[in-house]
């Protein structure tokens, strides 16, 4: 029998240390896995975590990879702080891509970049709509938002698949499941840095993602809205006592996080792909969950955490190309990292005792 008893006080230094320790243990565990798989551990780790940063252009690519993670992560911070467990950001991302895609494909000849504004709005509305479904079901029927949002991800995936193979398929695509390419106005341009020029695939939405994270931090820290989210998530009864409405918070955080996931979907297509295809995301909606926990539910830390996790993704690609390490190892890395973060979280907040559960009498004496 293992018993968990809550700790009275948790030192704030520990809160900062946990993510660092989790990352270190994950890297260590990675080394062991590489050794078992028959790869030189140090070389592979170097290939994984150092090599992707050896050229300046690679920093650009890293930020491009981190961009959707940061945007989605910011939205998820609000959900998780409110104790609402939206696991379906991936589906909301796909819906966002569809919402923006509907506009882009309907007006293929627009060349003005201002077209991106209505596209972004459409993406956020579509993503928000997809997150509204678990919200309304939770509020009305007390369903579990984890299950509903997760299952809706697969519905969204199949819907996209059907669209690009059916009604939205480009007649000129020689039977490939692709829509026509977006017009110029629907594409996000590369970012030219003064004095440096282009940095890999770096595009205009990357700085936007940083802005989103900072706005998220500001709302959480300095507004009554953010306060409500924290209060309701922390102590619903105190929230009701304060006069806040839990249902409104449930709707708010789910729709906001769905909207941001949708925005990430639009950015991914408009900046990197240029048309809709059966796969528009590399699981960013799921990876962002790890980012949020690594960031300890802090929107500004989401930027750093997004970059760290993006590095693991890029490293996986690099190691596969240079050493033939299977790409699934990246998934294993992410799994270990999340596990370490959650156990770290548990260990900071609870004492663990092994052995038989104690009788009430003894507990009382201790208390």
């Amino acid at each position, binding site marked *: 029998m293992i018993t968990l008893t809550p700790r009275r006080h948790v030192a704030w230094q520990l809160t900062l240390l946990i993510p660092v320790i989790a990352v270190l243990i994950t890297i260590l565990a990675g080394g062991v896995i590489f050794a078992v798989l028959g790869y030189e551990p140090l070389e592979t780790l170097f290939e994984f975590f150092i090599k992707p940063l050896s050229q300046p252009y690679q920093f650009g690519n890293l930020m491009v990879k981190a961009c959707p993670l940061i945007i989605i992560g910011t939205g998820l911070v609000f959900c998780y702080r409110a104790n609402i467990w939206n696991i379906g950001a991936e589906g909301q991302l796909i819906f966002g891509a569809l919402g923006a895609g509907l506009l882009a494909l309907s007006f293929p000849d627009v060349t003005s970049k201002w077209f991106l504004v209505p596209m972004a709005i459409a993406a956020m509305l579509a993503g928000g709509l997809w997150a509204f479904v678990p919200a309304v079901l939770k509020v009305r029927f007390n369903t579990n938002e984890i299950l509903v949002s997760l299952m809706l991800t697969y519905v969204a995936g199949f819907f996209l698949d059907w669209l690009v193979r059916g009604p939205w398929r480009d007649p000129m695509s020689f039977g490939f499941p692709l829509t026509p390419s977006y017009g110029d106005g629907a594409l996000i341009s590369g970012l030219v840095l003064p004095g440096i020029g282009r940095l890999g695939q770096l595009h205009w939405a990357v700085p936007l993602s940083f802005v989103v994270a900072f706005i998220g931090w500001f709302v959480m820290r300095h*507004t009554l809205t953010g306060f409500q989210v924290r*209060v309701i998530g*922390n102590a619903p*009864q105190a929230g009701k*006592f304060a*006069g806040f409405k839990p249902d409104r918070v449930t709707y708010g955080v789910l729709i906001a996080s769905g909207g941001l996931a949708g925005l990430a979907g639009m950015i991914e297509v408009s900046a990197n792909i240029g048309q809709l295809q059966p796969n528009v995301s590399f699981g960013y909606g799921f990876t962002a969950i790890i980012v949020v926990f690594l960031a300890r539910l802090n929107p500004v830390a989401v930027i750093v955490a997004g970059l760290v996790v993006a590095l693991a993704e890029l490293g996986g690609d690099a190691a596969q190309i240079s050493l033939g390490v299977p790409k699934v190892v990246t998934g294993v890395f992410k799994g270990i990292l999340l596990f370490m973060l959650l156990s770290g979280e548990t260990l900071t907040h609870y004492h663990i005792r092994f052995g038989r559960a104690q009788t*009430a*009498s003894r507990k009382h004496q201790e208390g």
Partner: protein
Amino acid sequence: MKQTNEQGILLEARQVSKYFGDFVANDKIDFAIRPGEILALLGENGAGKSTFVKMIYGLLAPDEGAFYWQSKPLTLSSPQQAREMGIGMVFQHFSLFEMLTVAENIELALQGVHDREKLAELIVEKSTAYGIPLNPDSLTADLSVSQRQRVEILRCLLQDPKLLIMDEPTSVLTPQEANQLFDVIEQLADSGCAVLFISHKLDEVKRLTKRAVILRAGQKVADVDSKKQSAGELAALMVGDEVAHIKRQSAPKQSLPRLSISALSRPAEGPFNVSLKQIELTVNQGEILGIAGIAGNGQTELMDALTGEWIDKSATASILLHKDRQADIELIRQGPTERRRAGVGFVPEERNGHAAIGELSLSENTLLTTHHIEQASQYDLVNDNFCRDYAGQITQKFDVRLPSKNPQASQLSGGNLQKFVVGREILKSPDLLVVSQPTWGVDIGAAIFIRKAMLKLAEEGGAVIMISQDLEEIFSISHRIAVINNGQLSKTYDAATITAQKVGLLMGGAG
């Protein structure tokens, strides 16, 4: 019955004491129960009833003294051991799995492996014999509260108990259901089982039991023939005469009403909730109105209805706030924020997670009940300076001792946090302050400070509604007193003239 009385003592307690830190929960209690006897254990909240029966059931161990079972020393380390000895307990709040059938729930409580068909037969047989028929295949979720209680009772009966402890078993039952239960208890006693019946309902105690043991403040104060004593005498023993000597407050003369409540009703939300029945109440300016009552008689429900966390949507109910030089404000449909804006302050019973949030800093905790104030937040932006300043004023004026500057609420001791949440409301100089259990679990110094602060608010013309289970508190600072019992509020009495016995009777539902 005649034979059983001649038998020896079944369970005896000799000089049993139990301490929780400095607190004496049970103080040298002597106690005995014979086979076939129905014995009432009577006392107010905190008198030590629960602690005492938990020791009998093996949930707690005595610190001093000892129990004897059929004259042999009894040491229990778990309820399971108690059940093996033949001690069963029916809790006030049941522990049944809703998604399991009656038979499955009973099987879970029994030791070892059982033949399901035989068990089902046994359930039908035993339950019919005791006049509480149960279908073993019914889903527990579909059962009424009294049927669920029968499952609990039957679970004990199947283990052939020699002693059955029942913790306020009628609190969840209708009068008819209670009568059925009494038949079962009497039948049990006739068959030789001893029943320890915990209650604070005086008429039930008189009806069902011959003997009553009365606890007060951890001590056994009386062991009486419950048939010979009047309900009033039992009430007086339960409440004690200490409170009779407390110097009472006298109500201010010719005061104007501050709040009028009429026809406030609330259906019970769950099996363990109490319904509020047509509450009528008027509080005047400059007075503290104390609402006494034993826990679980509708205090929480009333508090929620007063704060606006629960809203009565019926057409007839009314909560009218009378303002100085302003039109009256009808609060009945208003939420907590609107009620605060109208000039009412609230301090709920639970400090942690209701009145305050442990993980948030004190300045953030001020925002919980001040966010409607313009300086605190405007255009959705929180004014951190205002919150810090306000928290600073509270800590200074209400003597809240802090371990560090602007600490998390969880770092404060109970007394200091209570001074903070009370001060947070009083500092707003509310027209009306509604508090529940204002000094529950706080040290004496903090309790005195909080009571003085409430008296001062009343002196300055504010009105206070104080819901409290602490009679000493009720008597020492209330100007007028009402009693809540089973969701019904008594009429209001002048604190200077009402006797402790009268309050005890009202609390026991016999007023």
